């Protein structure tokens, strides 16, 4: 049996705002019966203020899917559409007093239904860019798709690196076999063979000169750019202050859901190149968009 919080149970046993909402003017639908969960979110939005005056749901799914739907409707009622869009899947999980890692996707589904409903109201087309794989790391709720994409994007070759980039495998370490299998598969695609030995050359140079240090920082940035440019984004080195490296994320990278992941990857490479702990900090013009927690 899942270790559900009392709030999850309460929202499952006594769901709020369940059933059709005939006067809805914003409807979002995600999932399908073949996936095992499907959610229809119905909102009544006041056109003048864009305030959500009523919210209702119909859900086919497990206990936490129904509880997440119920929680979502409670959270967004009375909010404007923009305020509602700021609700992240983590907010939904927090509202419910937490969800087991295997069930975080229920909160993601809630947020996606919300995005879909707002797009429906605004006459936009909403596209699901969230692909989900089998759950590999239960400690940090990281799935196989996330691990695979991160390995591919950053040319990773060890479990340790995967842990540094995604957190997967950083807890109880039981999933290392699964991570090794994904590494072997992706490395085979690029013509390499996975070897469990730690990555070679951990050169520990003496203290670098300032010039050498900046050169290495620039090299890391240059190495990262082709991958980002392929996704219509870019990264630029802005400044270096002590152990803090300021960069600007450009184009499609700015505000992208994967931004934190990209920065984490760059930071890791900086640490390896410089042989010291540094922080890579994005410099922004606009405040950051809330990130969708990978689940």
């Amino acid at each position: 049996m899942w270790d559900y919080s009392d709030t999850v149970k309460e929202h499952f046993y006594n769901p709020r705002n369940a059933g059709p909402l005939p006067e809805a003017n914003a409807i979002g639908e995600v999932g399908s019966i073949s996936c095992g969960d499907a959610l229809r979110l119905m909102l009544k939005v006041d056109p003048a203020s864009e305030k959500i005056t009523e919210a209702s749901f119909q859900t086919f799914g497990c206990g936490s899917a129904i509880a997440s739907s119920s929680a979502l409707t409670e959270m967004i009622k009375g909010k404007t559409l923009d305020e509602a869009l700021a609700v992240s899947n983590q907010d939904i999980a927090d509202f419910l007093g937490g969800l087991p890692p295997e069930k975080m996707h229920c909160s993601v589904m809630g947020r996606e239904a919300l995005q879909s409903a707002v797009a429906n109201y605004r006459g936009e087309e909403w596209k699901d860019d969230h692909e989900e794989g089998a759950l590999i790391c239960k400690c940090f709720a990281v799935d196989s798709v996330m691990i695979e994409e991160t390995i591919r994007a950053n040319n990773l070759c060890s479990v340790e690196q995967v842990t540094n980039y995604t957190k997967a495998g950083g807890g109880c370490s039981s999933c290392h076999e699964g991570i090794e299998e994904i590494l072997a598969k992706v490395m085979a695609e690029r013509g390499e063979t996975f070897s469990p030995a730690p990555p070679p050359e951990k050169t520990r140079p003496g203290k670098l000169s300032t010039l050498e240090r900046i050169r290495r920082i620039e090299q890391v940035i240059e190495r990262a750019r082709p991958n980002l440019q392929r996704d219509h984004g870019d990264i630029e080195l802005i400044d270096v202050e002590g152990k803090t490296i300021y960069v600007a994320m450009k184009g499609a990278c700015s505000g992208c859901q994967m931004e934190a992941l990209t920065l984490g990857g760059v930071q890791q490479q900086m640490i390896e190149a410089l042989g010291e702990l540094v922080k890579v900090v994005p410099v922004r013009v606009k405040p950051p968009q809330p990130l969708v927690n990978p689940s």
Partner: protein
Amino acid sequence: MSMPNSQPPIYLDNNATTRCAPEAVAAMLPYFTEQFGNPSSMHSFGATVGHEVKAARAALQKLIGAEYDSEIVYTAGGTEADNTAILSALKASPDRKEIITTMVEHHAVLHLCDQLEKDGYVIHKLKVDGKGRLDLDEYRKLLTDKVAIVSVMWANNETGTFFPVEEMARMARDANILFHTDAVQAVGKVDINLAESAIDMLSLSGHKLHGPKGIGALYLRRGSRFRPLLRGGGQERGRRAGTENVPGIVGLGVAARLAREHMAYENTQVRALRDKLQAGILAAVPCAFATGDLDNRLPNTLNIAFEYVEGEAILMLLNKQGIAASSGSACTSGSLEPSHVMRAMGIPYTAAHGTIRFSLSRENTEEEIDRVIAAVPPIIAQLRKLSPYWNGDGPVTDPDKAFAPTYA
């Protein structure tokens, strides 16, 4: 687990595990205290213990109709017995690189085979039809001298459906191939006479037949080629090293004796309760059907697919009323597939996510079954009211069209 309901709980998940019989527990207790000796020891502490282990082995031998008591090799459970059987066959015949099994085996066999496939073995998984039945012509064609072992379950854990293992074992023997059966669900519920069969190896588990957890056995026909999984001390005649789990062996012996005594009851009274439960639920709940080969299945098992609702939600509401059952669907991240057994039978997605297994035991009563028959219909109705696929008294006319997310 909280039991908010004041009524006593009803346990209908006996294919997952059973309550250890009080007689078995009582028989085990001395082996944790004064009878702590090692049966292999050359002193009186060990001697009495060794005697009891022998008696327990004889009781188990009788339950499965083995010719010799030395054909029983105790293991830590069904999973170890399954792994031992298959890995032994591969080791004994290194030139044979193929395995025949089925799509609907327990994970103890399937996941091992998946791993072996990565190691270069060829795994043939026999398909099943809509009722979960095998095609023996497909099987016959695969019986070649490349096959190291056939592993086919006696009864399916989710639907209770029997496979014709005795006939399949004869076919394997004619082709000179080892035959193993995972009989974890069948032992103790149906008559088994291994001496008269062509089965070479059989797995069983203590806690599925009111014995303790942590003990099981592999039946190994005398003369079958065998390679141990665990090597070490000479226990189990060198076929499974490790000091004997004496309390477990003694408890399993008592459970085996009790299972024999209740065999007729299981196949009459328990079967009647199961049939009543099936008829009662199906009469009251629309858009629901029993899965598996209904005329050829375990007497205690009932698997019902409830369309347009999800299994875990049903279980949570049942549990709230103190009713314990299980679901084949595991709604977890990325696990979009419902139970592999339901998918193999081609149960449509509209129903496969809502399958519930009720598995009875000799401890269930008619009052309990009546309570479950009364509890289930409102639970299904309540969840269907929440479902976007349900409209009033029936499913929406075309579920695929009625619910079509834009990106799909």
